[in-house]
C-alpha cells in the first residue's frame, strides 16, 4: 500500500502503488526519454522566462550545435574533458565511492601540467606527454587522501572530497594571484602555454583531446567490463560483506579504482588548460565536477553511455556559453538545467519500479 494515504486520504485512497517486478527495456528507455524531454521542456520554459526568445533557443541548441560543422566541432572539443570527468565518475561510483572531488583533482591536474610548462621541464617534443603524465599523477595523488581515509577510518568521502576541493581551489588562487601570475599583464592567470604545449589537431580539426578521451573510454570499458577488476567491482557493488567473504581484495580494488578516477579527472584538467584555455586560469574547472557526477549517474556508470551523455552535456555547455554572451544568462543556468535533468531522470525510476493502479470502490 502507498503510505501517502496517511496524510492525503481523499486524493489517494482509490489508487494503490505496486512494486513492479520488471519492465521491458524498451519501456524503460521510453520512460527515461520522456523524463528527459520533460526536463528539457521545464528548462526551456525557464530560459524563455529569463528572456531568451523561444525561436532562438531552438536555433541555439538544435540547429547551430548539431547541423553546423563548426559548432559540431566545438561540441566535440568541449566534450573531451567532459568525457574524462564522466568516466572518472563512472569508475568511482562503480567502487561505491562518492567522488565529489572531481573538481579538486582537475585543479591539481591542471596545476601539475602547468608546472611542467612553467619550469620548462623536458625537451619540446616530450613536453606534452610529460604535462599529461604530471596531470595524471597530481590528480591521482589528490584522490589518495580521501580514499585512504574512507578505507581505513571510514571518514565520509562526500565531505572529505568536497573539503579537498575548496583547499585545491584556494591553492589555485594562491598560484594565479601570486607567483604564477602572468608577468605581462596583471590578470590572475598563468603565462600562456607555448604552441608545442597545446593539444594539437589531429585530423580535420579534431583535437587530440577528443581522440584521447575516446581511447580512455575504451580503456574504461575494458577495465569495468573485461578485466579481473571488473569482476571484483561487481562484488564490491553488491555488498562489502559478501565480497570480503569470497576473497575479493576489497581495499585494493576500491583504492585502485578511485585512484584511477582521480587520475582521469586530473587529465581532464590538463585537457581544459592545454586544449581550451591555453593557460591556467582561476575558474577553468567551473561546472565540471557536477557534470561528471551527472554524466555517470545518467549513464548508469556505463562508459559508452557516459561518452554519449558527455556529448549531450557538451552541447549544453557550448549553448550555455553563447547564451551567456548574447543574453547575459549566467553560466549557472547550465547547472540548473543539469540538476533539473537529474531530478527528472531519477524520478522516472519511480515509474519504472512502481505501477499506480486504481482500486474499485475505495477499499484501501
Amino acid at each position: 500500500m502507498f503510505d501517502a494515504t496517511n496524510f492525503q486520504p481523499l486524493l489517494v485512497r482509490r489508487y494503490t502503488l505496486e512494486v513492479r517486478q520488471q519492465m521491458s527495456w524498451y519501456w524503460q528507455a521510453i520512460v527515461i526519454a520522456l523524463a528527459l524531454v520533460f526536463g528539457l521542456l521545464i528548462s526551456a520554459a525557464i530560459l524563455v522566462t529569463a528572456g531568451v526568445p523561444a525561436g532562438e533557443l531552438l536555433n541555439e541548441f538544435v540547429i547551430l550545435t548539431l547541423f553546423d560543422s563548426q559548432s559540431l566541432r566545438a561540441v566535440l572539443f568541449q566534450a573531451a574533458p567532459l568525457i574524462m570527468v564522466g568516466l572518472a565518475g563512472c569508475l568511482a561510483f562503480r567502487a561505491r565511492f562518492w567522488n565529489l572531488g572531481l573538481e579538486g583533482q582537475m585543479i591539481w591536474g591542471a596545476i601539475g601540467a602547468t608546472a611542467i610548462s612553467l619550469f620548462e621541464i623536458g625537451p619540446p617534443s616530450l613536453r606534452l606527454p610529460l604535462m599529461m603524465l604530471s596531470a595524471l599523477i597530481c590528480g591521482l595523488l589528490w584522490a589518495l587522501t580521501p580514499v585512504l581515509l574512507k578505507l581505513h577510518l571510514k571518514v565520509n568521502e562526500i565531505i572529505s572530497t568536497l573539503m579537498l576541493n575548496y583547499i585545491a581551489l584556494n591553492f589555485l588562487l594562491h598560484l594565479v594571484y601570486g607567483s604564477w601570475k602572468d608577468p605581462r599583464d596583471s590578470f590572475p592567470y598563468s603565462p600562456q602555454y607555448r604552441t608545442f604545449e597545446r593539444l594539437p589537431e589531429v585530423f580535420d580539426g579534431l583535437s587530440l583531446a577528443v581522440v584521447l578521451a575516446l581511447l580512455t573510454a575504451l580503456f574504461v570499458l575494458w577495465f569495468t567490463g573485461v578485466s579481473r577488476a571488473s569482476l571484483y567491482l561487481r562484488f564490491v557493488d553488491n555488498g562489502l560483506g559478501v565480497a570480503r567473504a569470497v576473497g575479493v581484495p576489497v581495499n585494493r580494488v576500491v583504492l585502485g579504482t578511485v585512484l584511477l578516477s582521480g587520475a582521469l579527472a586530473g587529465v581532464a584538467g590538463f585537457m581544459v588548460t592545454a586544449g581550451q584555455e591555453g593557460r591556467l586560469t582561476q575558474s577553468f574547472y567551473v561546472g565540471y565536477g557536477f557534470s561528471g557526477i551527472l554524466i555517470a549517474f545518467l549513464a548508469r556508470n556505463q562508459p559508452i553511455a557516459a561518452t554519449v551523455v558527455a556529448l549531450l552535456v557538451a552541447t549544453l555547455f557550448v549553448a550555455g556559453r553563447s547564451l551567456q554572451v548574447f543574453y547575459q544568462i549566467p553560466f549557472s543556468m547550465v547547472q540548473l538545467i543539469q540538476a533539473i535533468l537529474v531530478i527528472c531522470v531519477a524520478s522516472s525510476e519511480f515509474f519504472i519500479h512502481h505501477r499506480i493502479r486504481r482500486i474499485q470502490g475505495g477499499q484501501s
Partner: protein
Amino acid sequence: MTMLISWVGNIPDFAVPFALAALGLILIERTGVLALGAEGLMLVGALSGIGASLMTGGSTVWALIIAMIAAAVVSQLFALMVLVMRINQVISGLALVFFCQGLTGLLGTLMNWTNKPVQGLQAQPLWPLSELPLVGKLFVQNPVVYLTPVIFLLAVLVLNRTVLGLRVRAVGENPQAADAAGISVLAYRCAAIAAGSALIGLAGAYISVLSTKMWVADMIGGRGWIAVALVIFARWAPWKALAGALLFGCIEALIPQMAASGIRLPQYFVFMTPYAVTLGVMIWVAIVSRDNNSQPGALGEPFIREERR
C-alpha cells in the same frame, strides 16, 4: 587585549550560521533522512533574504522570515524526491544543492540583486552585561545571536522532553515500529524537512542579510557542507553541534582579525583553514568515536511500507 576582545566579540557572528544550519540538519536527520542539501538551502535563504530586504525597502525581520519560508518551500522538492519518489538520498541531496546553486545564480543575476548593500540589524546591547568594564563589548550583538541559544533550548526540549520529540526520534530510529504504532512516517519526515530547512534558510539569510549585508553568487562557499560535517562531529546532538559551531566561529573570526592586525600570512592559505579544520575534525571523530554509534538507526534509508524487514 583589545584584539582578543574584538576577536571573541566577532565569534558569534560567524558561529550562528553554522549553529542554525547544523540544528536544522539534526532535526531532519533525526527522522532518518540524510540531508546533504544544506549548502543549497543556505543559498536559497541568503538570496531570498537579500531579495526580500531590497524589495520591501529594508525590513530585515521580514527578510529573515521570507528566507525561512523560501528555504522550506524549496526543501519540499527534496521531500518529494526522497519521500514520494524514493530516490537515493545522496543523489537527491546533491541534485538539490546544484539545483539551488543554479537557481540562485540565475535569479541573482536576472533580478539584479548582486552586490546591492542592505541595512541589516542594529546591534543591541544586552543590559546589564553590556555595562561591564572591558568585556562589555562582547554583549553588543544583533538580536539573532541572542535568539540562537533560545532556539537551541527549545529544539532540545521538544526533541528530548515531549511526545512529539519521541515520535520524531522513533521515526528516525525504527520507522517500521513507528509505523506500526500509528505514526505517519512520511508526514513526520516531510514536516521535519520543512522545519529544519527553515532553520537552514535562516542560517543562509544570516550570512547575507546580517553579516556580509549583500548577495554574491555562491556566497555560502562550502559553509553548508561544513555544517553537514558538524552534525557528524556532534553525533546528532544539538549542544555538541553548538559547541562545534563556536569552534568554527573562532576560526572564521580569526581570519579578518589577523588581516586587521597586520600579520602577513599567505591569504589563500588562511582561507583554506576552515576546510582543513573540517577535514581534521572528521578524521578526529573517526579515530575517537569508532565504536560509539549514535547515528539515527534508519539514516539514509527510504521508508517503504510494503518492504517490511
